[in-house]
């Protein structure tokens, strides 16, 4: 019985965007393919207006889901796990094992919370955006000059709600549909935020493990060979080979620094690009042929998982590298 139910649910999930919506001639399901997240409403905090974007709103949903899940799973902990506890334990144990295998038992304790939180947050973010039916429901400002695009079913809001949702500034008036739910991974603010957290924590852990001075001088400011050169110069027997290698080391240190900064960018745009493009692909496919999203849904679920995994794994690896004492020559 349960299996049948899940099959039907699955079919419905696949059918709604691919089959049902085009039949109803709802052309502008997600009229906007915008990089910029849409503003749902603004919170007034004194003199400061805090615009709440749909991605921020969805971030909170993701957090709420995770916290509720964690709460449900650990509410009644038992030695013999069952239900949610089992699920959570499997996830956490898998991530912890990964940390242990990569970073060793001691560092795993330190890295694990960050890595696990990144994985869970990104995973739920990615998958939440895939749930059909959320994307097309949102807010769209309509007036006499700008009627709703053809095919969009609109329901007028009460004056209070209009007050609440309406953008406060005229220049924000864009006449696009602002979906309530949009995956946070399609918002660059979130991906940059995560990338910053990952890389800053990486540097901090590295400095904690090796000492601030040693960390910087071993990785970025490599003047060891210069010092040696001047020592030999002081003795009157200068080794000019050391001088050349010193120059090389200096250059390598700069490269290392640039690569460290560029990791933030690659983190940011890898996640954003994959998930954003995935949702666009799904949207396009829905209008091409009703069966097409079937395949792409499976694929995007996979991509969502892989991106979450990659983000977490790379963070883990960078942290491991940063906390490993090494000569810079060994790592390129």
């Amino acid at each position, binding site marked *: 019985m349960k299996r049948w139910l899940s099959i039907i649910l699955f079919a419905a999930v696949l059918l709604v965007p691919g089959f049902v919506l085009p039949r109803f001639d709802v052309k502008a399901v997600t009229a906007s393919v*915008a*990089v*910029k*997240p849409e503003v749902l409403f603004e919170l007034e905090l004194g003199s400061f207006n*805090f*615009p709440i*974007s749909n*991605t*921020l709103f969805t*971030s*909170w949903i993701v*957090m709420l889901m*995770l*916290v509720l899940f*964690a*709460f449900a*799973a*650990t509410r009644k*902990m038992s*030695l013999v*796990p069952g239900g949610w*506890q089992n699920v*959570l*334990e499997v996830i*956490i*144990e898998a991530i*912890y094992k990964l940390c242990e295998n990569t970073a060793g038992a001691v560092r795993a304790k330190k890295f*694990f*919370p*960050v890595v*696990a*939180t990144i994985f*869970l*947050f990104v995973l739920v973010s990615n998958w939440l955006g895939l749930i059909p039916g959320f994307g097309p429901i949102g807010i769209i400002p309509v007036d006499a000059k700008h009627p709703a695009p053809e095919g969009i079913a609109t329901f007028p809001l009460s004056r209070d709600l209009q007050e609440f949702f309406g953008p406060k500034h005229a220049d924000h008036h864009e006449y696009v549909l602002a979906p309530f739910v949009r995956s*946070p991974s399609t*918002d*660059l*603010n*979130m991906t*940059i*935020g*995560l990338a*910053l*957290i990952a890389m800053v924590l990486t540097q901090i852990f590295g400095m904690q493990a090796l000492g601030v001075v040693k960390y910087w001088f071993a990785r970025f400011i490599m003047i060891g060979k210069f010092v040696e050169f001047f020592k030999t110069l002081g003795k009157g027997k200068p080794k000019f080979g050391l001088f050349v290698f010193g120059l090389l080391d200096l250059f390598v240190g700069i490269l290392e620094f640039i690569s460290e900064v560029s990791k933030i960018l690659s983190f940011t745009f890898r996640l954003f690009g994959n998930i954003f493009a995935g949702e666009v692909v799904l949207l396009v496919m829905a209008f091409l042929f009703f069966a097409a999203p079937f395949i792409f849904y499976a694929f995007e679920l996979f991509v969502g998982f892989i991106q979450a995994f990659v983000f977490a794994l790379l963070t883990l690896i960078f942290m491991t590298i940063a906390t490993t004492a090494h000569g810079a020559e060994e790592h390129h």
Partner: protein
Amino acid sequence: MEALGINTTWLIAQIVNFGLLLFILSRLAYKPVLTALNTRKQKIQESLDYAESVKKQAAEQQKDFDLKLEEARRSAQAAAAVAAQAGEKEREVILAQAREDARKLIDQAKEQIEYERKQMLAELRQEVVQLSLLAAQKAVSQSLDEPAHRRLVTDFLAQTDALSKN
């Protein structure tokens, strides 16, 4: 930046979000679950160790038991052998006794027979003496006196006796 929708407010909001989530999940999920996993690991290890020790103990007991069984079997065999030996001895004693008894009985019987034969011979001799006396009396009739006569017969009998003994 604005075209990409990047702004400081949202960026900070997202970073705060992550920090908050990290904190809550650490408290609510990671710590209790990892603790539980560790406890379970320890419990399982303990159980395995215990099972191992019980197994070892059982094996030892089995060995002990086997040893004792073997010992008991051996002592039973020894006892049986001793009993068998004793029985054999007893049998021989009884047999010897029986043989002895039989021999004694036969000897007695032989003696008896011998005695009776002698008796009979003596009686027979007396009879023969009487008969001879009577016959000789009749034949000789008064030619010899009584003592001479008796001597004569006795000599004769002695001769026959010596003959029969040879």
